[in-house]
């Protein structure tokens, strides 16, 4: 994450995503059962993987925050969860479109991955009211980190429970997507996954940089005109020291 400047990272993610989309539309073969709609798989699954991976990253930052009490890690955990929740909305939308096209319904309760993801999404959606409910900045950051760690452990447990809750005779429609994926599809999927991961990292870096810039700006403004109106910042977004964007 530290190796690339923000500009190079942006160029790289745009390039990989363009490559991924070209592969999706011109290289990957049409699915024998589902035809064209199956191509949403290359968007939906990488989005979901990145969102869940982002929650794990947030938990790691949260652990580091609790150990060091450095607000930079809290800011990173916050932005990671923020970005993953946004990705989560996209996952639920693309999932619904895929479900409608291949099963005829917008929502299917007996697909474990769908249900688990919804539960995880709902849990992380409570991250914002949690932060909002705690006045003291330092305590807010600490509690948010505790939440991020607890929720991070919750994610795999939840997937296990929901998966077991499905009767084993239920046919897994996408069994082919798990195992016997042909090489060309696998390659396209890999490129899409890399593209989405890069996109996630880039957006996280942008948000951190913007937060750092805004914090610096309001600090400068306050230095200029005393305790002026510049003090007005978001109440739930963590305060970011100005070096966070580049760190």
């Amino acid at each position, binding site marked *: 994450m530290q190796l690339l400047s923000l500009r190079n990272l942006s160029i790289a993610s745009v390039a990989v995503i363009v490559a991924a989309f070209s592969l999706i539309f011109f290289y990957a073969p049409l699915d024998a059962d589902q035809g064209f709609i199956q191509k949403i798989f290359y968007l939906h699954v990488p989005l979901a993987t990145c969102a869940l991976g982002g929650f794990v990253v947030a938990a790691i930052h949260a652990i580091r925050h609790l150990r060091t009490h450095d607000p930079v890690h809290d800011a990173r955990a916050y932005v990671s969860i923020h970005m993953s929740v946004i990705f989560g909305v996209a996952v639920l939308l693309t999932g619904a479109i895929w479900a409608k096209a291949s099963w005829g319904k917008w929502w299917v309760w007996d697909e474990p991955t769908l249900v688990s993801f919804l539960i995880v999404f709902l849990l992380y959606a409570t991250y914002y009211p949690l932060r909002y409910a705690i006045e003291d900045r330092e305590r807010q950051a600490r509690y948010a980190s*505790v939440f991020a760690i607890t929720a991070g452990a919750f994610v795999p447990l939840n997937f296990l429970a929901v998966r077991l*809750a499905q009767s084993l005779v239920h046919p897994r429609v996408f069994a082919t997507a798990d195992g016997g994926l042909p090489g060309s599809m696998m390659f396209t999927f890999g490129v899409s996954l890399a593209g989405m991961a890069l996109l996630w990292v880039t957006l996280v870096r942008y948000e951190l940089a913007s937060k750092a810039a805004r914090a610096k700006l309001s600090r400068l403004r306050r230095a200029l005109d005393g305790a002026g109106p510049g003090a007005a910042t978001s109440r739930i977004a963590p305060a970011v020291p100005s070096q966070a964007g580049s760190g």
Partner: protein
Amino acid sequence: VSAFRAILAKDLRVELRTLQSLPAMALFALTTFVLFRFGLDRESLSGSLAAGVLLATVLFAAILAVNRLFVAERDEGGFDAMRLAPIDLSALYAAKGVALIVYLGLLELIALPAFALFFLDDAAGILPVAGVLLLADIGLAATGVLVSSIGAHSRARDLIVPLLLLPLLVPVMIAAAGAAEPMLEAGGPSYDGVAKWLGVLGLYDVVFCLIGYAVYDFLLED
């Protein structure tokens, strides 16, 4: 261990003298059963429907107890006293967890017979279901104490607790309902696939007890 015992004894004594949580929980559970009776328009339940009604009622009643768990500490400055005392704060976590398990156990002592009386044609499954509920209570207490401590320091306490707790309890609900379902089958209890669910419940209990133990100190330091 002595701190743990002192806090637990204090909590149970306070509850015994003030009766703040338990009667409310029991009354809430009974009322919810009556609501389900009319909402579902059934006079007897079995299988998954019975398990769902029972578990949903117990979980919602548990939220009342979780909400009230740290009220005394917050209002009377008990948190500061705990921080000042030369004790390991994990003792507070453990004591509050055990107190919550005791409350839930007592609640189930009332709610289970009532449930059997209201809805079950054959009450043979009640005893094994009580065992499942006990496992569920441990997981509930492990997450409940964490969420309750978070809630105690926030402005919208009554809002934050259910909001955080309900999604965290979804695996408990799934596993406990899965285990209770065959036990509440109309033709008498059976135990198909119960072991799998008990395993999930046990795993949840262990994982969240460990996490609670690891992160609890950070919720109290100031």
